[in-house]
């Protein structure tokens, strides 16, 4: 059996063991994603990579590719679903772009641009979440956390540490720090950890680098999320967000 699947009618190859997302990225096809990053264990929580596979909804980042699979990706209906999911993420947290030093380099924001999102649409949740500035080099602003667990995975899988975890349940789920005080300053996170730089939003930010690149000259001011996130495009995110 040939190892190919179809994304929006286009036949693309896949290697056994690859997910739909792996195959798509390798073929230069953009499937929107926020919690996914090649090299880390797929997570499947943000659901922005939602596709319809032979009529059934699935997360492209976790579903293994199989031969002959017919995947709907860039359809108006799915783009609308994904836009709604971005709006849901915006109202769930406190995402005030003009006050955030990640603006312009934020993947959530870029996804909003990609889907033509103009507003949060739903009633905001106004959560009261703790800010942790105890670490000398890194600040943790939970207001902006989207619970993608990229930092959780990067710390465990790339840094060989275990700095972050998700605690709580449901809408009260929140990022926690694995240290006796629960404070970042008491953890073993260091500035050269992947986990310190992987945050797609402005929740985990290195201190003292906020405005090295002016607004208007940042990654998503110059590029769309589709360019920046397709693996073979060698784009670097600006300033301190580089890996």
């Amino acid at each position, binding site marked *: 059996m040939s190892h190919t699947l179809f994304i929006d009618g286009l036949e693309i190859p896949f290697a056994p063991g690859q997910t739909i997302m792996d195959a798509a990225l390798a073929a230069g096809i953009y499937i929107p994603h926020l919690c996914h990053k090649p090299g880390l264990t*797929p997570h*499947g929580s943000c659901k922005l990579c939602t596709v319809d596979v032979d009529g059934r909804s699935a997360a492209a980042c976790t579903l293994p590719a199989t031969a002959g699979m017919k995947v709907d990706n860039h359809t108006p209906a799915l783009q609308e*679903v994904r836009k709604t999911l971005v709006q849901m993420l915006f109202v769930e947290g406190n995402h005030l772009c003009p006050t955030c030093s990640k603006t312009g380099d934020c993947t959530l924001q870029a996804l909003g641009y990609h889907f033509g999102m103009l507003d949060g649409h739903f009633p905001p949740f106004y959560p009261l979440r703790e800010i942790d500035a105890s670490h000398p080099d890194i600040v943790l602003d939970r207001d902006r956390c989207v619970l993608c667990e990229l930092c959780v995975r990067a710390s465990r899988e790339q840094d060989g540490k275990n700095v972050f975890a998700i605690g709580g*349940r*449901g809408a009260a*789920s929140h990022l926690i720090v694995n240290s*006796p005080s629960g404070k970042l300053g008491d953890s073993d996170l260091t500035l050269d950890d992947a986990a310190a730089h992987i945050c797609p939003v402005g929740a985990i930010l290195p201190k003292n680098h906020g405005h090295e690149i002016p607004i208007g000259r940042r990654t998503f001011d110059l590029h769309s999320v589709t360019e920046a996130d397709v693996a073979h495009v060698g784009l670097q995110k600006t300033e301190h967000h580089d890996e």
Partner: protein
Amino acid sequence: MHLAPLPSLAKQPSADHLLHRLHQLQEHHRYIPAETLAPLAAELGLPISQIEAVIDFYNFFHRTPRGCFDILFSNCTSCGDLALMQQLCELLDVQPGVTRADGKVSIDQTSCVGMCDQGAAALVNGRTLTKLTTEQLPQLTALVNTATPLDAWPVGWFSVQDNIRHAGLLINDALPAGAGLRAVLQTDADQLLAEIKQSGLRGRGGAGFNTALKWQLCRAADAPEHYVVCNADEGEPGTFKDRVLLTSFAQQVFEGMALCAYVINARHGFLYLRGEYRYLLPSLEATLAEMHATNLLGENILKQPGFDFDISIVLGAGAYICGEESSLLESLEQKRGVARVRPPFPVTHGYRGQSTVVDNVETLLAATHIAVHGGQWFRDHGTAQSAGTKILSVSGDCTAPGIYEFPFGISLQTLLETCGGLDAQAVQVGGPSGTLVSREEFGRKLAFEDLATGGSIMVYGAQRDLLAVVRNFTHFFAHESCGFCTPCRVGTPLLRKYIDKIAAGHGTAYDREEMVRLGKLVKRRSHCGLGQTAANPLLDLLEKFPQVCSERLLHQDYEPFFNLDAALATTRDLTHRDDAEAHLS
């Protein structure tokens, strides 16, 4: 006044299970003090963040002290009575969710406690109170205020009845202990698997996966260890049949686990018992001990060389999501009960990554009977696609709530005639995650091919406000969402906001449309069964009882989500103003 601190669990291989250690800490201190986390983490060899994460995930663990008497009223539409909770709060001078200043008492609500046939129900320090009435509240208040230990409370208050109203194939079939195992050991595991296959047995939790196929896949899976897990996390509101099966037929359930173990080559099994059924622990432990004593468990079971099988009980701590099999496995692994990505499925990658069968209590019970009588005996009942009988938990507005066992394929109408529920305007079949059925559909059949149910049948009489019922369910799902995926984590609280707005008379047609649009997204795009069913009640309501919603709608284009005048209350107080400009209409 403390409940006996799970003494039996200390002897178990699972004594050091994080959930049990947290139960013990919660019980001893009335909360889990921050300073206990680091020593516990060191002792169990777990990251401190994992312990913290687990504490905050499960409802029965707290970071601040609860009262010496912590009373949790069920908020289920069948076994809950929040008016009663309010009355008790007033009598005890306590706010819901806030521990009284003297530390003696705290009162709150909790999801269905599985006493729907004998409500109103509550838990006091983990022990179940049934048939609560207004009349007993003054006495209860006195017992709390005098710090009377629970053992000195009227015994009858804690009595739980089986209420078996209609017994069928399984419940009527009295079996001597070990009958299933003895029958099978005369042949072999292949023969048992063939009989289970012949029986057509499908999972009784509601999803209806073919049991023989599950066992076969697990058996064939190439993993070093195999496990059998009995899912006794019966959390679907309106379901209580597993409570009865574990009260009066536990031996047959455990035997079913051993039979499964025999087929899949498991050496160890778990019964994951919902925290609300903690009162069952002593009797379940006694049953296990008895089975050990009679060589129905342990090593070389019934002298069969190499047939070793043991069962541990793990007690949950208030999380509906743990009834979802992959969440249950996460919970068994001492983590938050978050649904896993599937595939891979538990039969190949289950408990600790090993091949695992997770079966419902009733499925395992049925397996024992099938082992004795053969597959055809079972298959002769029910329908072509839904073999055998179903044990139903009937509650709500009917004259005889309780347990009913009927062959699959009976109509809802027949069931309602039997339980005295013919006045119903609607029935919720399968619990909040199931289907809201209107009178016109009472001819429909209870079967996997028509109305599937894990056993919950909630009857709603003509007087019930269906919008209030559906609002209750919508709140339930928002409360129980694990928070893993965006559609459910954000969508279920949003649905709650919309239905609250409509129920309060502030909704517009636009809000209703938005609620439907969102509901469909949550249903189609969520990660697991919880999110995929969370919008069912309100979507069913709007389809089948549209007037219930439309008569509450405002005939205007738009209405805010929040009360503007209330949003000025704090600043009115701070400025001591009450002039016209200090208010908003």
